């Protein structure tokens, strides 16, 4: 087995094309949607574009190549591809945009597909949390991390998994897009705490027990990037999550009745 000493250009291309494609499709969908409905907010397009660029940075170009050799850069790429990129993409409401930009009959078909059991399972935050955090534990705590640097296909599959798990996890915690099945705030808060805890325990344990082949100084710095970077992105998710609770908990009636009785 030969280690991939550099990232094959073809591999970078395979992983980069979907994100380039997504940027173009979104822009086209905005133009279609604007013909029939009110203008699609520019900041959602900005979120989508930046989110995809974050992912592109992580899979192709100089950062991705450096990440191959350096665990610290690898962790920065991981934060971009698995957390910051997916969060920005969730915030840009892609499913709502898609449904607005196509004929109603097709939109109904897509809604029917989204109601299938498969997507229902993915919207229960437990499953994406397990895929996301469990996947990271498997990656860093087994030989997979070493194997990934030897096999193009493993590398591609793992990076696709990190992105998809990050996207569905974020989408199952904060409801920005059309969400046919809603779970309670308490349930989502518990999963969010457990997922963040699992992420931080793993981060600190990489400091304590570096993965095979990673120099100790890189493992320590990478661990701290994972820990504090994860905190930063999750803080944004937490603030949005709590704000959504605040809006949902709005009192329906005025609560200033019977003040005199209780005294």
């Amino acid at each position, binding site marked *: 087995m030969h280690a991939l000493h550099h990232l094959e250009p073809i591999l970078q291309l395979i992983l980069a094309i979907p994100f380039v494609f997504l940027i173009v499709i979104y822009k086209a969908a905005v133009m279609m949607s604007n013909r029939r409905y009110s203008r699609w907010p520019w900041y959602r397009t900005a979120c989508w574009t930046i989110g995809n660029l974050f992912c592109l940075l992580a899979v192709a170009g100089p950062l991705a190549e450096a990440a191959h050799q350096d665990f610290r850069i690898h962790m920065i790429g991981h934060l971009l591809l698995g957390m910051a990129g997916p969060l920005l993409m969730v915030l840009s409401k892609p499913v709502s945009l898609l449904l607005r930009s196509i004929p109603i009959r097709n939109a109904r078909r897509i809604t029917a597909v989204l109601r299938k059991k498969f997507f229902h399972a993915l919207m229960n935050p437990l499953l994406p949390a397990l895929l996301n955090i469990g996947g990271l534990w498997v990656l860093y705590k087994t030989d997979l991390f070493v194997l990934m640097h030897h096999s193009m296909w493993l590398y591609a599959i793992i990076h696709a998994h990190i992105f998809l798990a990050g996207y569905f996890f974020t989408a199952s915690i904060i409801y920005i897009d059309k969400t046919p099945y809603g779970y309670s705030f308490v349930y989502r808060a518990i999963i969010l705490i457990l997922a963040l805890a699992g992420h931080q*325990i793993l981060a600190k344990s990489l400091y304590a027990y570096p993965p095979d082949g990673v120099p100790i100084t890189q493992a320590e710095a990478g661990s701290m990037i994972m820990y504090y970077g994860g905190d930063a992105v999750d803080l944004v998710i937490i603030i949005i999550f709590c704000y959504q609770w605040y809006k949902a908990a709005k009192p329906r009636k005025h609560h200033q009745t019977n003040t005199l009785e209780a005294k």
Partner: protein
Amino acid sequence: MPDSNQANVSKRNLWSGILFGLGLVAFIDETVFHQLLNWHHFYDQSTTKIGLVSDGIFHAFSWIATVGGLFMVADLRRRAAWWPKRWIGGALLGIGLFNLYDGLIQHKVMKLHQIRYGVDLLPYDLVWNISAAIIALIGIAIILNTNKSIKS
């Protein structure tokens, strides 16, 4: 005297305070003792595995507790039902309890890290834990005091 709005949601006032206190003190611990003073270490060679688990869970929980506790205050104020005295009692209880857990269980039993390195630890441990206990007791006294005014 609480008005009826405050008394109706006295539990939410208390919990919001406790959550915010827990979150605030965890945040202070991280910024002051880890980042500014550099007394606490990210990892200590003697850290037990259960220490890593406890650190992760408390860290995650306190992050959500800080933000969630403040949004609960916003909600209470929107209902004209925020009860600052009871809330502060809860916050002090949260601060004291977290520091006791951190100082006794995490530092001593799980050996996550010590308060400071290269010094005689005993006075540091005593100041840390006794002050935590006093803060918690003041919090409890305030809460009991507000309990009375709900009943009367």
